[in-house]
């Protein structure tokens, strides 16, 4: 990324201003049924400025990092803020200064692999799958690596630089059963550049073997019985629940837009077994999947304990919402592209582990489901949620039974979390997802397994 020294432009700031140089770099390699259908690299980057004037914001961006364009985006953003201010005249006061300094670079110290070596890596995995699992009717392998690098200067004295990469390999396996296709995906990888995350193709083979066994079970699976059931949600589903059904309702802009959470602060919204945190960068002694040390408004990022032993404690804030609610900003303002303005976003949202063993949780269910792998998920400002479930099993008499076909669970999160009766003592993070809210953004989600009562779709 450009080594432009943003501090040389601070003299152009006439009002609260953020000046950001931001570059996203992406590598994608795809094999569909042995065909190398994708092999590409992309770089998207540039400079942006955002200016605040009496409650109105102006923003401008350009991919050109030349001196004249940096000056131009600051001027256009300043003019835009003035244009809006003269028309809406909100007369709001200044934003709280949050000076901070940070440098976080997660790039690898190892020699980078060439594109050919990456293609060969994926091809070797594809060859292994063909050799080991001849009954598959199709397989798709996608390698996706993203580096997000930002340098930020704000008029209240924050200066930060971050490079946060993530490297993922998606494996989708398909079988045909009675002429109908059945599939199951798995994601490998996480935070870090490829060389730090994947050492050899063989490191994936144990996971792929488990995936294949689950797929075989799913091909013989049954429809879930639609209705309200006792379920054990494994870590990945608990993570998406924390993010979608609770986290979004506590984003302060959503609260201002009418989220049900607005009336629930300091009230009991979950079982006392549930503590839910949006971690900034470090959780339980380890670096999170998507660490944020200083956000895109220059605010030092802090953990936000959303639910503490069942009680709703806080919302997620940027500077403007913090002023509105009379609290300190939490460092949740994040932008995806150089051309995007920062929005209130989650970072690493997780339910904290409890004390139960997963085996005991399953054994305690007489008639229900053990749900393992989520697909997509959505939630409402009412906290009504829906998550696709792509892998799960019946529980009958405390024992796992038949696999189930793809299904969906739903409910009202602030009601459902009150039914949580057991929380497992382990924890798993996911960082393959992109959260959508005007802009996409990488997020971390995590959790233990939880036992709860929820609606499940089926026949």
């Amino acid at each position: 990324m450009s080594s432009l020294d943003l501090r040389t432009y601070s003299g152009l700031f006439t009002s609260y201003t953020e000046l950001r140089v931001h570059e996203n770099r992406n590598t994608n390699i795809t094999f569909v049924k042995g065909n190398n259908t994708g092999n590409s690299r992309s770089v998207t980057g540039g400079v942006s400025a955002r200016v605040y004037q009496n409650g109105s914001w102006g923003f401008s961006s350009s991919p050109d990092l030349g001196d004249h364009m940096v000056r131009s985006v600051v001027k256009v953003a300043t003019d835009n803020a003035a244009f809006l201010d003269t028309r809406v005249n909100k007369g709001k006061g200044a934003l709280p200064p949050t000076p901070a300094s940070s440098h976080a670079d997660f790039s690898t110290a190892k020699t980078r692999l060439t594109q050919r070596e990456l293609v060969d890596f994926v091809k070797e995995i594809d060859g292994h799958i063909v050799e080991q699992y001849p009954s598959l009717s199709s397989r798709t392998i996608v390698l996706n690596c993203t580096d997000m690098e930002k340098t930020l200067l704000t008029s209240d004295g924050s200066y930060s630089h971050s490079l946060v990469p993530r490297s993922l390999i998606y494996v989708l396996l398909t079988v045909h059963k009675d002429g109908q296709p059945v599939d199951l995906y798995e994601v490998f990888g996480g935070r870090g550049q490829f060389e730090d995350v994947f050492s050899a193709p063989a490191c994936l083979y144990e996971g792929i073997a488990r995936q294949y066994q689950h797929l075989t079970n799913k091909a013989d699976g049954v429809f879930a019985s639609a209705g309200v059931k006792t379920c054990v949600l494994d870590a990945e589903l608990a993570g998406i629940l924390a993010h979608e059904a609770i986290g979004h309702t506590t984003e302060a802009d959503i609260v201002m837009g009418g989220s049900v959470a607005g009336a629930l602060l300091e009230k009991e919204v979950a079982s006392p077994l549930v503590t839910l945190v949006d971690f900034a960068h470090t959780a339980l002694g380890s670096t999170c999947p998507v660490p944020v040390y200083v956000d895109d408004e220059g605010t030092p990022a802090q953990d936000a304990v959303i639910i503490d032993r069942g009680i709703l404690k806080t919302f997620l804030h940027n500077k403007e919402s913090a002023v509105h609610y009379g609290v300190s900003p939490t460092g949740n303002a994040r932008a995806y592209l150089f051309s995007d303005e920062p929005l209130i976003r989650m970072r690493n949202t997780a339910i904290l582990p409890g004390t139960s063993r997963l085996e005991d949780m399953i054994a305690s269910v007489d008639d229900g489901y053990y749900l393992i792998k989520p697909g997509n998920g959505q939630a409402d400002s009412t906290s009504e949620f829906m998550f696709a479930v792509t892998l799960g099993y019946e529980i009958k008499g405390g024992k796992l039974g038949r696999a189930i076909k793809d299904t969906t669970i739903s409910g009202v999160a602030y009601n459902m979390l009150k039914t949580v009766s057991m929380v497992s003592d382990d924890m798993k993070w996911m960082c393959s997802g992109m959260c959508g809210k005007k802009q996409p953004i990488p997020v971390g989600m995590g959790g233990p397994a939880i036992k709860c009562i929820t609606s499940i779709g089926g026949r």
Partner: protein
Amino acid sequence: MQDPRQTAGYALDALLKAGADKAQCLLVQSDKHEMNVDSGELSLLRTTFDTRLALTALQAHRKGSSSGNKSDPESVDRAVAECVSIAQASQPDEANDIAGAQPREVFTTGADAPDLDRMHFRLQELLEAIRTRYPKALLRQAFLDFTRTKSYFVNSNGVDFETHKGVYHCFLMFSSRENGKVSSFNYTGFATRDLDRELISCGSLDTLLRQSGEQTTTRPMQGKFVGDLIITPDCLGDTLGFLVRSISDFAMISGTSIYKDSLGQEVASPRLTLHSRPVSDEICDGYFVTADGHAAASSTIVEEGVLKSFLLSLYGSRKTGKARAVNDGSAWVVDPGSTSLEDMVKSVKRGVLMARFSGGSPSINGDFSGVAKNSYLIEDGRIAYPLSETMVSGNFAEMLKSITAISSERVDYGEAILPWVAVSGVTISGK
């Protein structure tokens, strides 16, 4: 080398000089002017400029792609070298190719520049209309933007297309509140060539805002039954999306499409006719050039229930041995039926008017389940009450065949024109 046409030509020549047997270059310059509303108030004016340089090189049937958003000479040279290097690292595939020679064309649609004062006027007018007509509405987020793009597509077979396009987009996300109760959020958007009309009269916005106000008090439905769905135009995309994905490259090449041998066969009720019309005057936010460099044309995908075309790219066509589509899909237009929406509701004994589907991606065989959001229970031909915590499940492929009526009314979103569609045989379950 500031002229974009010259830059695209330079990049194409450089790819060939660097060793590509065949090459293509897409250069897009865009500017966006966007007014944003947060929590019911104008909050942000955003002006962004961007460039997209997308290069493709073929060398001995190996394909490489590289893209970036800078077009200065150094960046172009770097992208060219990277693109050829990626091609050399790829696996050879004889299906890789670029579009054949076509006559040079220049396409133009929409305005050249935004009318910022008019944008501000229309947005303020919309906010005032919402405050007046729908006082319960909570406008969480909205934007009105004008996006202008200039695109240049050239390839080594002599393809040379230039497109100039300007279009306004509007998007709103909202809920409603009454006596402390909040409705589920809903959202909609539309595109328009100009700002001649009040925004509230565009797309389905007025209807959805009215419904949102009705949905502050909802009831879960009791029990489970198999009944009818009337799918609103805002919700129809989920059903069509399954069909579209199933006839596109990935599903066809991987062999997982349930429609892979269905060309010319009935895949839906004879009531359904689906077109993709990216170059039609009735679509203001279409496109003129396909991703692989062919001049786009409108086409009929499903005619009276019969599958008339797959949506295969040039590569997908060569991999499967089936015909290349004349467009990339989208710009959907569904033919109207002969039944009014009112009569469609009257004909339902028990079912749901489904305005938003919050569900998982369907299985590749079409099985789906999800929550009916912003939806209503229909009983004995009348809309009974707005629902909460109600799940619907079924199979999209079966649903397409079980269409019982299509409305004579349609909603024009600028980027699609869609009716209400009634289907039978869906499992509906409440508490």
